[in-house]
């Protein structure tokens, strides 16, 4: 039976009966290749695996696929987190207020009378409320795929979990026994 996702799917992870698909290299398993692709190995291991990749086409291919997945996930995350940067402007304003206050001599109310202290508190409150309004008023953008799968189990001969590139729509495909 022709595979329903051929040439149309992306970010594909195939699990066959709970085990990773067999890899045509006896030296390195897919998990090791994945760590290599994420540079999550020691520098000696990285050099050794890189040398191995020069002569092993299956490992080289698999590493390329893992890197492609990482790049697409990261670029989606960066697009979403850019919108959060503006919220940090409020921290800069509050830091400046603090530095100004430290310059003034200390007293019962920090050299201010009760009216001035109230004015300062109200000013700070307005800054927080306006800042929160600007930050929260934007539609909340939650990065990542439409669904994160915590686990799958059952009487299935195979399970595939993937996410489409453009809309990050999550699909779980299982084959009944």
């Amino acid at each position, binding site marked *: 039976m*022709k595979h329903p996702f051929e040439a149309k799917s992306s970010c594909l992870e195939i699990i066959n009966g709970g085990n990773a698909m067999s890899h045509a290299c006896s030296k390195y398993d897919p998990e090791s290749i994945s760590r290599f692709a994420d540079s999550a190995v020691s520098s000696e291991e990285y050099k050794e695996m890189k040398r191995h990749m020069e002569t092993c086409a299956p490992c080289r291919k698999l590493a390329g696929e893992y890197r492609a997945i990482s790049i697409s996930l990261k670029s989606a995350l960066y697009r979403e987190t850019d919108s959060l940067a503006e919220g940090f402007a409020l921290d800069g304003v509050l830091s400046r207020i603090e530095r100004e206050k430290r310059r003034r001599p200390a007293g019962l109310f920090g050299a201010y009378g009760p009216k001035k202290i109230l004015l300062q508190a109200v000013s700070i409150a307005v800054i*927080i409320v306006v800042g929160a309004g600007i930050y929260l008023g934007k539609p909340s953008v939650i990065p990542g795929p*439409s669904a*994160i799968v915590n686990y799958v189990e*059952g009487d299935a001969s195979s399970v595939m979990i993937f996410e489409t590139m453009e809309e990050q*729509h999550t*699909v*779980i495909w299982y084959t*009944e026994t």
Partner: protein
Amino acid sequence: MTGLRKLLILMLLLSPLPAAGAKVAEAKVLTDVRVIHASAKSDHIDPALRGLGRKLTSIFRYTSYRQIKQKKMRLEYRQTGAVSLPGRRILEITPVDLAGGRIKYRIRITKGGSPAFRTEIMLKKGSSITIGGPEFKDGVLLFNIFGTIQK
């Protein structure tokens, strides 16, 4: 910063929190389950699918998508909703938590009374997931699950 100023700011920042906790408990989870028959026997997209039909054609190689059933449920947390499916199957879905803007769902599909498939997902509010695979009438069944929060 003096104690008075700290106290004022702390009061302003903490004031929404008790209300937020109560709101999560009161919220209902709107869950929309659509059961779709996909096949390559003909070339037809059910108008009832609307935008979902276009999404499915971009993911799968099937040429025909027909909506068999749609069930919209307003579930409380830990309340299970059930959808009967073709082929003596039943899909049970339970929202169990809300965290980081995602609804945690537990989904169970049985066939002939026996468990066939179980999963737990964290679904982005206002998004959907598609679960598919079971064979049915020269095609397959797809289950599109949409979830959002109604306050």
